[in-house]
C-alpha cells in the first residue's frame, strides 16, 4: 500500500483513513506493507509493516528503472500549484526555492533521496522519486495486490505494477476538481487519470467522487467502486470533558479555510443567526489561503466580536474544540467524503453538513443543506440552538449511527475489491 502519511504525522485526513483502513483489513486477513515517503519511527505499526521510502536504495543503473523513468516525464512545478499547503510551509518553500534554484542538480537521480513527506515544495520531484521507490520495492517484496492512495502515490503504484505484474487498485480520496474547483492543475489531473486508467480497480470514497471519476476522467464505470470511509471508535473516557468558558452557545467550523471548504457561507450564515440571536459565538478553526479574506469579511459584517478564528488546531485541541461546541458545521462546496462531521458526532455534537459532501450519502441523523443556501444553513444552526428535541435526537441516534460506520466493515468491501483482481 502506497500512502503519503501515517499517524501521528498527519496534515490531512488521508493518514487517519489509511490507519483505520489497514487495521480493518487486518481483521479480514489482509496483511499490509505500508510505504510512506518519510517515516519518523513513532508510527503505529500494530496493523502494518511500515516501509520508509527514504531508506530505500534505488539503483538507477538497473534497466527496469531506466525504462520506467523514460516513460514518466519529470514535471517541474511552481509552488503555487502545491495542494494541502499551509502558509508557513508555503513561505518556507518559496524562500528555499529562491535559495536553491541556481545550484539545483536533479536530486531524483541520487541513490538515496530524502523525502520531506510533506505536501510541500518540489512535490512533483518527490512524487516522481517515490515512483522509483515503488518500482524498487516491487522488485524485492512479496505481495498480491498494490493499493495506492491519491495521486501522489499513483506513479509509484503504476511503477510497481509494471515491475511486478501484480494488480493495481487506486483509491480516490479527493480529485483535483475537489481541491481546485474548475482551475485544475493539468499535471495533477493527468497523473490521476493515468493512474486510474492503469489501475485494475478504482475505489472512490463516495458516489459523488465516483461520478466525478466517471464523468470528468472518463474512467469505465464497471471498474469504479464506492467504499465510504469510516471512523475509529473512541475509547471511553478519551473524550475529556472540557470546561466551556463562555456562556453563549458555540457553533464551529473546523477545516482548511480554502475555497473547497466553503468558509464564506459559514460566515454569511453566522451573520443571519447573530442578527436574531446575539447569544451565540462562532468559531472558525483552521487556516488556509482564504483566512485573511474571511477575517476581513467578519469585520465588515460587524460580527467580529462574536466570530473567532483559532488558527490551525490539531490532536487534543481538536477534541477540545468539539467538546466546547454546540453545533458543528461543514459547509463544503465539494467534499469527496469529509470525516470531520463523524468526529463531531462521536463527540456528541450535532452537525450541519452540505449536501455536496460524500459523507451526506451515509448519514441520516444530521441536517443537510446546499452549501450555497445560507438561509437554510442559518435556519439549521438556529434550530439546533433553540429546539432542544433536535439535539436530543441527534445525540441519541447520531452517536449510534456514527458508531455503526466501522472501518472493519469498509475494509471488508475493500477486501472484496482485492478479491476481484487477485491472481491465484
Amino acid at each position: 500500500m502506497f500512502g503519503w502519511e501515517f499517524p501521528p504525522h498527519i496534515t490531512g485526513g488521508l493518514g487517519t483513513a489509511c490507519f483505520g483502513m489497514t487495521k480493518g483489513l487486518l481483521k479480514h486477513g489482509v496483511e499490509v506493507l505500508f510505504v510512506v515517503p518519510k517515516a519518523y519511527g513513532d508510527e503505529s505499526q500494530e496493523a502494518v509493516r511500515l516501509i520508509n521510502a527514504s531508506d530505500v536504495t534505488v539503483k538507477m543503473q538497473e534497466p527496469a528503472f531506466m525504462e520506467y523513468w523514460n516513460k514518466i516525464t519529470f514535471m517541474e512545478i511552481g509552488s503555487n500549484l502545491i495542494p494541502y499547503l499551509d502558509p508557513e510551509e508555503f513561505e518556507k518553500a518559496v524562500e528555499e526555492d529562491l535559495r536553491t534554484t541556481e545550484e539545483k542538480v536533479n536530486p531524483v537521480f541520487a541513490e538515496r533521496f530524502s523525502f520531506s513527506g510533506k505536501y510541500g515544495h518540489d512535490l512533483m520531484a518527490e512524487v516522481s522519486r517515490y515512483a522509483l521507490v515503488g518500482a524498487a520495492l516491487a522488485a524485492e517484496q512479496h505481495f498480491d495486490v498494490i493499493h495506492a492512495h491519491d495521486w501522489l502515490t499513483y506513479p509509484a503504484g503504476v511503477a510497481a505494477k509494471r515491475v511486478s505484474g501484480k494488480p493495481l487498485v487506486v483509491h480516490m480520496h479527493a480529485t483535483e476538481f475537489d481541491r481546485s474547483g474548475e482551475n485544475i492543475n493539468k499535471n495533477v489531473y493527468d497523473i490521476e487519470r493515468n493512474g486510474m486508467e492503469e489501475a485494475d480497480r478504482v475505489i472512490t470514497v463516495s458516489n459523488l467522487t465516483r461520478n466525478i471519476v466517471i464523468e470528468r476522467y472518463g474512467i469505465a464505470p464497471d471498474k469504479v467502486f464506492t467504499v465510504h470511509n469510516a471512523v475509529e471508535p473512541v475509547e471511553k473516557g478519551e473524550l475529556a470533558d472540557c470546561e466551556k468558558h463562555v456562556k453563549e452557545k458555540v457553533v464551529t467550523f473546523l477545516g482548511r479555510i480554502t475555497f473547497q471548504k466553503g468558509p464564506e457561507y459559514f460566515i454569511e450564515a453566522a451573520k443571519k443567526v447573530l442578527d436574531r440571536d446575539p447569544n451565540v459565538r462562532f468559531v472558525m478553526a483552521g487556516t488556509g489561503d482564504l483566512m485573511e479574506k474571511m477575517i476581513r469579511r467578519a469585520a465588515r459584517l460587524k460580527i467580529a466580536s462574536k466570530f473567532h478564528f483559532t488558527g490551525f488546531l490539531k490532536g487534543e485541541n481538536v477534541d477540545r474544540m468539539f467538546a466546547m461546541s454546540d453545533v458543528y458545521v461543514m459547509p463544503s462546496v465539494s467534499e469527496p467524503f469529509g470525516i470531520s462531521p463523524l468526529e463531531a458526532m462521536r463527540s456528541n455534537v450535532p452537525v450541519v453538513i452540505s449536501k455536496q459532501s460524500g459523507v451526506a450519502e451515509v448519514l441520516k441523523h444530521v441536517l443537510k443543506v446546499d452549501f450555497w443556501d445560507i438561509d437554510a444553513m442559518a435556519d439549521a444552526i438556529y434550530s439546533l440552538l433553540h429546539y432542544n428535541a433536535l439535539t436530543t435526537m441527534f445525540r441519541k441516534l447520531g452517536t449510534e449511527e456514527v458508531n455503526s460506520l466501522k472501518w472493519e466493515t469498509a475494509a471488508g468491501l475493500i477486501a472484496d475489491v482485492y478479491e476481484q483482481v487477485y491472481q491465484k
Partner: protein
Amino acid sequence: MRSICLYFQVHQPFRLRTYRFFDIGADHYYYDDYQNKHIVRRIAEKCYLPANEILLSLFREYGNDFRVAFSITGTSLEQFKKYTPEVIESFRKLAKTGNVEFLAETYSHSLAAFNNETEFRRQVEQHARTIGKLFGVKPVTFRNTELIYSNDIADMVYKLGYHTMLTEGARQVLGWKSPNFLYNSRNHPGLNLLLRNYQLSDDIAFRFSQKTWSEWPLTTEKYLNWLNAIDKDQKVVNIFLDYETFGEHQKAESGIFSFLKALPGTVLKSGKWNFHTPSQISELLDPVASLDVPYTISWADEERDVTAWLGNDLQDEAFETLYSVSDIMAECDDEGLLRDWNYLQGSDHFYYMCTKWFSDGAVHQYFNPYSTPYEAFINYMNVVSDFLIRVREYEEARSAGGHTVAKQKPDVARPLKEKTGKKEATSVTAVPERTAKTKPDKLTDKKAVTRRKAAR
C-alpha cells in the same frame, strides 16, 4: 343478507411554506399556497371528480341498494372552496342522493384527542357545523383522525353524543376475534364500534396495482369470492379507505376506476350482500362483545399504533409546544389566530417528523413534502414560534383590556347562525352573566362574542 360498509376518508392538510427563523415575528403567513393549490387541483382532477362521478352514476343505477360513507376534513373543505369549488359541488350532488352518510371528525384532522378534551370538542363541533352547512346533514357517526381509538377517546366521543364510531380492526386488540362484527366500547356500551377489515381494505388500498402480488390483477369477482369465503355468522365487512386510493394512490391506468364501477353490481348480483352506512349497521346489528382498548390504536403502519405521529422527541416537543397555548386558544376569538390554530394542529405536520421511515419508508415518503423529519421539525417549530408570539401578544392585549371587539370578523359558519334568531337571543342573555364576573366592560363584550360563537 350481510352488509358491506364502504367508508372513504378525504383529507388535505394546509402544507407549510419554507419558513425560516428570521421570518419569526416578521411574517405571519405560514402556508405554501402554490403547493396546496397544485396538489389539491391535481388530486381533484385525478381522484375526487372522476370518483364522485362514478359514485353518482352508481347511485342512479342501484338506488338505495348502494350506499357509502364519507368523512371530509374541514381543512380539505376549505381548500376545495379556495381552489376547486367544483369538488364541493360534486359532493353536494352526492349528498342530495341521500345515499351518503357524512361522518364527524376533528376539523383539521388533528391529534387533539390526546391532549385536550376542550379543544377536541371544539374541533368536532366546528366540523359538524361545517358539514351541516355544506351538505345539510348532521353527522351521527364519529371517526377520529387516522381511526385513532382508545378507552379514553371513547369517553370523549360518547360524551359528545355519538353512538357509533369507526376504528381499526387492530390485531393487538382483537386477538382471535374477527373485525366482521359490530362491537361496543367497554366503558360505554352505548357506543357501537365498527372495525376496519384491514386485509380486504388494503387489498384495494395498497395491493391493487402491485404486479408482484400473487392475486394481481384483482377483479370484482375474485373480491366477491373472498367476501363469500367469510364465515356466514360474520355480518359486516368494513372496507375503510382513503378516498385518494381511487386515481391517486392507485392510478387510473391500474384499472381502479373500473373496479369501483363494477364492484356494487358484482356484489349485489350475488344476492348475499347489501351496502350499508355505519349508522345503518349500528341500527341493524347488535354488538357481539365489548372492546377494552387501554392502549391507543390507529390504522397506520404495521404496528397499527400512533408512533407515526407522536412518540419521538421531535414530535413530542412540537406537540407540547403547540398545545402550551391551548388554554388561551380556548378563549380566543381572533379569527386569524383560530385559523392558524386549526391548521397547525393537523396531524400531518407530526407525521412528517416521524423517524420510522427506515422501515415503513415507502408509504411515509410518499406523503411527505420534506426530505427528512428534521427539516419538517425545524420548519414547523419556526412557524409555531411565530404563532406563540402572536398568541402571547393577543393574550397580553386582552389582559390589558386593549383588545377590541371591532377586530372580530365573522367566521365561516356565521351566515347560518344569523338565520337562527333564537340562538342570537341566547347570546344576548349571556352578557349579564359575564358582567357578574367583575371584568372590564370591553372584555365582557368580547367574551360575549366568544360565547355566542360557542353557542353555534
